[in-house]
């Protein structure tokens, strides 16, 4: 009774609010909030210089550059090719379209370790794809980029798809009647309409890539200062029983993730307002 009286904005005849919300809050607190706060509280036991040197060591800095750089590059590639894939799926008919559409979600469902060993085998020097490339992919920073591209692939397509499907055809017809070329219509009419969704998809892919571990460690080679991602540094510290050091770096990554989460929420609100919902 307490929860419903304190929180409900509008009286409802439906039962179960107190039980459902009470259980939800308890579960969120126990599984998510209390454990996450443990990470922050742990770093408060460190002195500021100790914290600073733990999160800015040369190996750690190199791993930030790689993690953020490769995540950004992968998200850019996914934004460009995701737009093409989405456009083709929504606008064109071709044999196997439904099948392709269904398979786009594969990176959501395929375990990261499975993706990791498959990509490593394919992009290694004698792999199906790697043998045709003039440069090394597996066991280099380029491999990190390949794995992160795989992981982020569905985000742009799936965020863009409903927006592109709902785009009213009349606007494009009007642009054509007014003498715009197809390219002009795309740049001046279609692109501004889908920009918020495209940016949201980009941000989702980027945020997902920042924390990715399973698919990357197989293909990266994990050379210190060269191809070592930040989540791996956390694991390495844990294996050396340096819990405070690991937690300090984890807190830096958590803050970055939360910033991304806020940005994504703002972008999604923008997308909805553009769609007039």
């Amino acid at each position, binding site marked *: 009774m307490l929860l419903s009286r304190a929180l409900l904005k509008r009286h409802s005849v439906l039962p*179960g609010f107190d*039980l459902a919300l009470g259980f939800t809050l308890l579960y969120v607190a126990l599984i998510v909030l209390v454990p996450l706060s443990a990470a922050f509280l742990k770093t408060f036991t460190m002195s500021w210089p100790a914290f600073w040197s733990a999160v800015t060591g040369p190996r750690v800095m190199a791993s930030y550059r790689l993690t953020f750089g490769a995540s950004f590059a992968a998200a850019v590639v996914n934004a460009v090719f995701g737009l093409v894939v989405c456009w083709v799926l929504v606008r064109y008919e071709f044999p196997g379209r439904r099948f392709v559409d269904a*398979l786009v979600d594969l990176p959501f469902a395929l375990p990261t370790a*499975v993706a990791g060993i498959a990509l490593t085998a394919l992009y290694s020097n004698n792999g199906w794809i790697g043998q045709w490339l003039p440069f090394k992919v597996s066991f280099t920073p380029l491999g990190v980029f390949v794995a992160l591209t795989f992981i982020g692939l569905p985000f742009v397509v799936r965020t863009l798809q409903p927006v592109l499907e709902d785009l009213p055809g009349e606007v494009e017809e009007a642009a054509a009647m007014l003498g715009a070329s197809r390219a002009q219509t795309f740049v001046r009419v279609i692109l501004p309409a889908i920009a918020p969704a495209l940016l949201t998809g980009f941000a989702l892919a980027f945020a997902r890539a920042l924390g990715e571990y399973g698919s990357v460690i197989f293909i990266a080679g994990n050379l210190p200062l060269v191809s070592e991602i930040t989540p791996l540094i956390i694991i390495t510290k844990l294996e050396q029983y340096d819990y405070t050091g690991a937690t300090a770096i984890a807190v830096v990554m958590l803050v970055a993730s939360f910033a991304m989460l806020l940005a994504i929420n703002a972008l999604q609100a923008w997308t909805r307002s553009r769609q007039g919902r």
Partner: protein
Amino acid sequence: MSSMLTSATTEPAWLRRTLIAIALLFLALFLFVPLAAVFFEALKKGLGVYVAAITDPDALSAIKLTLIAAAIAVPMNLVFGVAAAWAIAKFEFRGRDLLLTLIDLPFSVSPVIAGLIFVLVFGLQGWLGGWLRNHDLKVIFALPGIVLATVFITFPFVARELIPLMQAQGTEQEEAARVLGAGGWQIFRRITLPNIKWALLYGVILCNARAMGEFGAVSVVSGHIRGQTNTMPLHIEILYNEYQFAAAFAVASLLAGLALLTLALKYVVERRTAATHQKART
């Protein structure tokens, strides 16, 4: 006129074909070929090696542990997902947006960090570490830790699948049932559940696929004890690092099959929900 407009609002045939080719080539390089490679590499050394890899005692124990962990984690998140969706979709209350953000939170936390936070709470040096040791209980490097990490990672899936659907369906049907004298459990079972059953099923299957495939978080809390705390993804890693590639891909092919099953079910669910929406409209 209409044909002129059509040609003015679509691309020339050569451009259409080029775009389709680019899209398919990109998907081939990053999706289709890797998926095919899993099954190809698994069967490269023949069916005998494949069967031997899967029926190896360590593999069987990894499969068993994965099934047990999922069998505990998925029902937990199912109950949570239904409760959260009922509160969020059927009622208007203060702090609802904040709660939605909190439910999404595990999506943006790195799996490695998800494992780490449970070590900080339940590990030997952790908050409850001393108490657990005095009572001879083990969470980290044991099944409870694996379950907790899995629950955290797969936390939002069922709720996220149900909330938008239940919000779109509104509350009129449930309210009518209430006015006619139905009890809470009766309303849920006879009205709400039939409306959401397909989305619920997909949420559970997706949650299950992620639970069985979780690698980073489980890797931190498991301790990698062969035959005891190794799940399937961890077993794949061990085999791969020992250069037993065919065996690693054989175990991986089981999880890839589960992923394909998940996608097939998603396809069915989307067609069903589209069909019910159409029926509701006409």
